C-alpha cells in the first residue's frame, strides 16, 4: 500500500450523501481514503491508500498531486508537473498561495486549509 493525495470533484449520492467522486473507485480490499471536503467549494482533498494508483490517476474529475515525499521542495519537481498542478488548482477555483521554494507539505497545507480550516496534513489519512 502507498499513499497519494488527490483533488476530487464532489457528487451527491442518494445513499452516501455528498462525497468525492474518487470514492466510487475504491473497490479492492485494503484500499482506504480519507477526505477533507468543502461543500461550498465543491472540492475535496483525498489521501488514498492503495496498491495501485493507476485507476485514481486516470479518473475523470480527479487530479493527482505530486507523488513525492512531503519534504521535497516544489522547485525540485519537474516544471511540467508543477504547471499541471497549478492549472488543476486554478480550474478548481482554489488559490495558489505557495512559493516554489515551499515543500509539498506546505502545498498540501495551503490547499487543505482552503477546503477545511481544521486541516492538518499530519493528522490526515491513516
Amino acid at each position, binding site marked *: 500500500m502507498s499513499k497519494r493525495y488527490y483533488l476530487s470533484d464532489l457528487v451527491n449520492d442518494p445513499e452516501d*450523501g*455528498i462525497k468525492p467522486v474518487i470514492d466510487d473507485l475504491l473497490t479492492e480490499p485494503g484500499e*482506504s481514503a480519507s477526505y*477533507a*471536503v468543502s461543500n461550498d467549494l465543491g472540492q475535496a482533498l483525498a489521501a488514498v491508500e492503495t496498491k495501485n494508483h493507476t485507476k485514481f490517476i486516470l479518473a475523470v474529475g480527479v487530479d493527482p498531486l505530486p507523488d513525492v515525499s512531503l519534504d521535497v521542495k516544489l522547485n525540485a519537481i519537474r516544471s511540467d508537473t508543477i504547471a499541471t498542478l497549478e492549472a488543476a488548482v486554478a480550474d478548481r477555483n482554489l488559490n495558489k498561495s505557495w512559493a516554489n521554494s515551499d515543500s509539498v507539505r506546505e502545498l498540501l497545507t495551503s490547499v487543505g486549509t482552503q477546503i477545511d480550516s*481544521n486541516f492538518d496534513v499530519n493528522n*490526515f489519512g*491513516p
Partner: protein
Amino acid sequence: MAVFASDTFTDSDSTELSAHTPDSGGSWTQSTTWADDAVIVSNQLQLIDSATNGTSGYAHSGVPDSAEYDLTWDSIVAADGASQNINVGVLGRYDGDATCYRCRYRPSQTRWQVTRIENGSGTLLGTYIADHAGGTAEAKFEVRDAAKKLFVGGIERISTTDNVITAVGKAGIDFAALGGASNDRHHIDNFVADDLSAGGGTFTATSALTTGGATCSASATHTAPTFAATAAPTTGGAIASASATHTAPVFSSTAALTTGGATAQATAAFTAPVFSGTAALTTGGTTGSASATFATATFTATASLTTGGTAASASGTFVAPVFTGTVALTVGGATASASATHQPPQFTASAALTTGGATSTATATFDAGDRTGTATLIVGSTMVSASATHTAPSFTGTVDVTIGGATFAGVAAFSDVEPGSLAPACWAAGDVYHPGFQAGQVWGG
C-alpha cells in the same frame, strides 16, 4: 479514561432499546428523525425485522466530560450478510436527532465509512474497504478536535481532520437498511463510550515497602490529561527504576537497572507519527546500544556493541521503495563490513575485509534480466581480479592476473556460452584466482 456509556445488550429477545437498561446505567433515547425500532436478539442489537428500508438512531444519556471520546463496538455480519444492504454503526457528537459524526459498516458495499451528518444531510469523510461477512470486526471511532479516526482490529484505517460539528453531544447507535435488506444479517454488540478524563480532579497512589536492606516504592498520578507512574526497588547494591508518562499526544516510558558496575536502560516514545525506542547496556568495559525509529514511510534501526578492542555495529533503513542494510565488525586491526541495497528491480550487495596490508572486496548486482558480479583480492603485491557478465543467454568474462610487477591481461576468456553448458558453473562472482589456472586457457573448458 472514564466510561460514560456501555452496553452488552443482555436482555430478553425483542426488547426495544429504549426499554432496556444499559450496563453502565442511564438510558437510550430514540431519534425522532431516524425513528424505527432497534431490538435485542440473542443479546445483540439489530434493526427490527419489520422496518423495511428503515432507519434508527439512539442516543445514550451519558454525558462525556469533553467533546473528545472513543466509541468502540463489535460489528457482527452473518455469513450471507455481504448481499444485504443493512448498515450499522455508532454516532459521536450526536445531538439526539439527525446531526452527528457517524461511523458505520456497509456489508453490501464491503466498506467502512465516516460521515458528517447535519440535519440529516451527509458528507462522506472517509472509506475503508474490507469484508468480514461471517465474522466479527472490533472497531473504534476516535472523536477528537484534531481528527476523527476509524480503527478496525486496532489498525488505523481512516483519519479526517473535519471538525465542523464541535458540540459535545452524546454517544449513539445507528441503523439504516436499504434495498429491502434482511435486517437480522448485521448486529452490534459490546458498545463502549469512553472519554479522556478520569472524572475530574487528581488521583495519586503511592506504596512503599522496606524489609532488611531492601526498599521498594511505587507511585502513580493522574491529573488530566497527564498520566505518570514510577517504581523504584532498591536492594543491596542494585537499583531499578521505571517510569511512564502520557500527555497527549506524547507517550514515553523509561526503565533503568544499576547493579555493581553495570547499568542498563531503555526508553520508548511515541509522538505521532514518530515511534522511537532505544536500549543501552554498560558493564565494565562493554557498551551495547540499539535504537529504532519509525516516522511515516521511513524505518531506521541501529545497533552497536563495544567490548575491549572489539566493536560491532549494524544498521538498516527502509524508505519506500528502497531497503538498505549494513553491518561492520572490527577486531584489533581487522575490519569486516557488508552492505546490501534493494531498489526494485535492482539488488546490490558488497562486502569488504581489511586486515594488515590486505584488502578483499566483492560486489554483486542483480537487475531483472541481467546479472553481473566482480570480485577482487589484494594480498601483498599479488592481485587477481575477475569480472563476468550474464545477459541471458550469453556469458562473457575476463580474468587478469598480476604477480609482482607483471600483469597478464585476459589470461582467460569465456563468452557466448549456451545455456545449460558447464561453463557458468565453473565460475561464480566472488571466486578468486584458481592456482591451477593456465594463461590462454579457455575458462570453463
